[in-house]
Each structure stands twice: as structure tokens, then as C-alpha cells.
């Protein structure tokens, strides 16, 4: 069979994998942003106990690989009767990982708000909450956008690791097909194209965002 036929035949399968990769990424990213924002706010307002717990979570999550986190969820937890299907494991694992990255992204933005802005705010008598509401958050969110976008790209790429717990996303689809038909060139080509379709536009957007925010911050 010609390469072209191989590719054509595999197209429906790759389409399924492609959609699943997108879908899992989307849920993972949204979940990560929520978890990250919560952790970052706990840190910003120095909430007792919860702030500490969030900080510990961030360190554990950031300093261990997703693959090991997934193995834990998928193989170790069921021993104690806590069983999730593969896709749920993937989503939970991705959010566990992504939450800390997003938290760091938000922290970076809030820390990036210039000291003089904060002091000016204090000087006109804003309370801590008002300072956050009117000065730090609006500027901080803008500053954190490039980091958040970079994290999104990172998380989408990390979904390729889901293949180790046999979630039929893009990478898993390709590896399965290679295992069955030994046409590695064609299937790897499809795999690369699949990720390129998702990630090239995003990385172009990221470059633009980075420039915008950099020029924007010169305004002060």
C-alpha cells in the first residue's frame, strides 16, 4: 500500500485522537486555571493554613513528573479502593500538574506590578482589598497572560504522556497503529502534523501576546 493510502485509511482514527487530545487539554487547562488562581489568591492574601497547604501542593506538583503522578493515580490509588477510569486519571493528573504552573504564572504577574504602583495606591488610602481589586489584579492579570499562554501550550504537549495509561489520544493512536502495521513513517508524520495544527497557531499567538505585554508595561 502506498503511503498516501495508509494515511487516508488512518485518518478517521487520527481524527478521533485529535479531538480527544483537544478535549482533554481544554478541560485540563480550565481546571488548572481555576486551581492555579485559587492557590495564587491564597498566597497573595497570606491566608493562614490554606496558604501553606497551597504552597506545599505547588512545590510537590512542580517538582515531580506528570508520568509519575499518573502512575500514582492509575495504579497506586486503586489499591486503596479509589478507582478512576483512565480518562479521569488523565484529567485529574493534568489539573494536578497544571494547577501549580498556573499558580506560578499568576504569582509572577502579581509580583510584577511595580512597587511604585502599589505605594501610590497605599498613599491614596486604599485598603488591602481595594489595592488588590483596583491596582494589583488588573495589572497583574495582564502581566501574567504570556505565562498562562505558555502553560497552556505546555499542558497540551503533556497530554501526549497520557499514552502510558492507554488513553487513545493522538500519541496513543499513532503508537497503536505503528504497533499493528509497522508503518512508522506515515503514522509519525500524521502525529507531528496533528500537534503542529494545534500548537503552531497557539505559539504564534503567544509570541504576539508577549510583545503586547512587554510594550504595554512600558506605558508606566
Amino acid at each position: 500500500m502506498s503511503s498516501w493510502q495508509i494515511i487516508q485509511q488512518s485518518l478517521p482514527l487520527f481524527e478521533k485522537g485529535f479531538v480527544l487530545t483537544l478535549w482533554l487539554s481544554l478541560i485540563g487547562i480550565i481546571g488548572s486555571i481555576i486551581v492555579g488562581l485559587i492557590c495564587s489568591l491564597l498566597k497573595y492574601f497570606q491566608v493562614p493554613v490554606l496558604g501553606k497547604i497551597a504552597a506545599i501542593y505547588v512545590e510537590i506538583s512542580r517538582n515531580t513528573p506528570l508520568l509519575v503522578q499518573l502512575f500514582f493515580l492509575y495504579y497506586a490509588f486503586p489499591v486503596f479502593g479509589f478507582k478512576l477510569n483512565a480518562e479521569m486519571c488523565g484529567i485529574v493528573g493534568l489539573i494536578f500538574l497544571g494547577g501549580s504552573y498556573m499558580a506560578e504564572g499568576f504569582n509572577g504577574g502579581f509580583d510584577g506590578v511595580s512597587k511604585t504602583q502599589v505605594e501610590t495606591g497605599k498613599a491614596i488610602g486604599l485598603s488591602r482589598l481595594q489595592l488588590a481589586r483596583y491596582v494589583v489584579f488588573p495589572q497583574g492579570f495582564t502581566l501574567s497572560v504570556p505565562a498562562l499562554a505558555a502553560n497552556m501550550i505546555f499542558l497540551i504537549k503533556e497530554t501526549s504522556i497520557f499514552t502510558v495509561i492507554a488513553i487513545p489520544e493522538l500519541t496513543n493512536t499513532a503508537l497503536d497503529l505503528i504497533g499493528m502495521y509497522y508503518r512508522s513513517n506515515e503514522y509519525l508524520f500524521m502525529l507531528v502534523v496533528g500537534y503542529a495544527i494545534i500548537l503552531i497557531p497557539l505559539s504564534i499567538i503567544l509570541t504576539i501576546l508577549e510583545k503586547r505585554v512587554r510594550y504595554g508595561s512600558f506605558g508606566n
Partner: protein
Amino acid sequence: MAHSGINVLFEGRNLIRLFGGLWTTVEIAAVALVLGLILGVVLGVLRTFPSRLLRFVLRLYLEFFRIIPTVVLLFLFYYILPKQMGVNLPANQVATLVFALWTAAEMSDIVRGALISVPKHQRESGMAIGLSRWQLYRYVLIPQAVSLELPATINLVTRVIKTTSLLMLISVMDVINVGQQVVEANNQKYPTGVFWVYGIIFVMYFVIDYPLSWWAKRMDKKRLERANG
């Protein structure tokens, strides 16, 4: 608790085997990092040169390694090197190569970013005392760039170490692969052993990565404080 799961670690040579696997992991990471960081500095310097063609080619290289997930890179090299290029390398060398090239790509961007953020006047002061381009990089720009980007470089190191967890995918006998074998071999006797085996691997990665990222964070914080006066 005769069969408490934790004992799986002390059964036979299990613990030694796990540390043996960890050694393979560390070895691959270390070699890849040394090669990748050196190549990355060279590429980063080249990316600040005026030649448009050179910059374009190196940018393409960076974007390719940045956009394709590392898992996919591993398989690309794993299948394509022997098939298309007739190069038959053992899996751990394929992995070392992939990680080194990936590290070099990321490092080149870090170095380039640092070099172009060295103030223009530094470059001119160097030129004013007659330094050649090579001397300018050697004595003025690279030393400043390196200290500027040390935190980013350390973070890259932690990323590479975490990424070594993918080694098992191309059947390198790394710590995770060994762990899987230990779990399978002892599953009957220690049903909860899986928790402890993956648990200790989890801890191993954390113990290696956490001090590094703590160090990088502390340096960043100090710099921020200094910048704010």
C-alpha cells in the same frame, strides 16, 4: 501486618535495583545536559549574529523542538534514526541525543534572550576599547548573560530531569521501568506494594528537583529585590 506493602522495598534486591534504575536516569540526564547546555550557548550566541539566514535556520530548529511534544520526539528518533538513516543506537543513547538536542534548543533561546538584554552601552563600551567580536562575547556579554539567566537555566535542568521519566516509553531501564518490574514481580505477595514503589520514585524525583527549583526561585527573588532597590 506481616505483608505491609512497604516491605516490598526491602524484599531481596528491590531497593538496590530501584537505585540502579535511578542511576541510569541520572546518567542520561547528566550527559544530555552537559552536551545540550554547551551546544545551546553556542547556538544562542549565533542567534545574535547579523546573518538572517543563520538566525532563521536556528529559529526553525528551536520551534521544531519546542512545538513537538518530547514523547513524540523520542519516538521520531527511535524509529527514524535506524530506518531512514541506518543509525542503530541503543535506546539510552537515542534518549540522550533527543534530550541534548531539546535542551540545546531551549538553552539557545535563554542565552539569546540574555545576550540581547545586556544594555547596548555595554556592547559599545567594549567596542570602544577595541575588543573584537569574539572578545566582546567572551569577556563582556557571555559572563553577564550567564549570571542573568542562571535561574532560567536551573529551571531548564529541572525540566530535563522530570522529562527523563519518559525514558521507559522507549524501553530504557530507568527507575520507572525497574519500578514497574518490581511491582509486577511482587504483586502477589504485596498487593499494596505498588503504592510504595511508585511512592519512592515520586519522592526520588522530588528530592532531586526541589532543591534546584528552590535555588532558582531564591535567586530570582533576590534579583527582584535588588531591582526594586
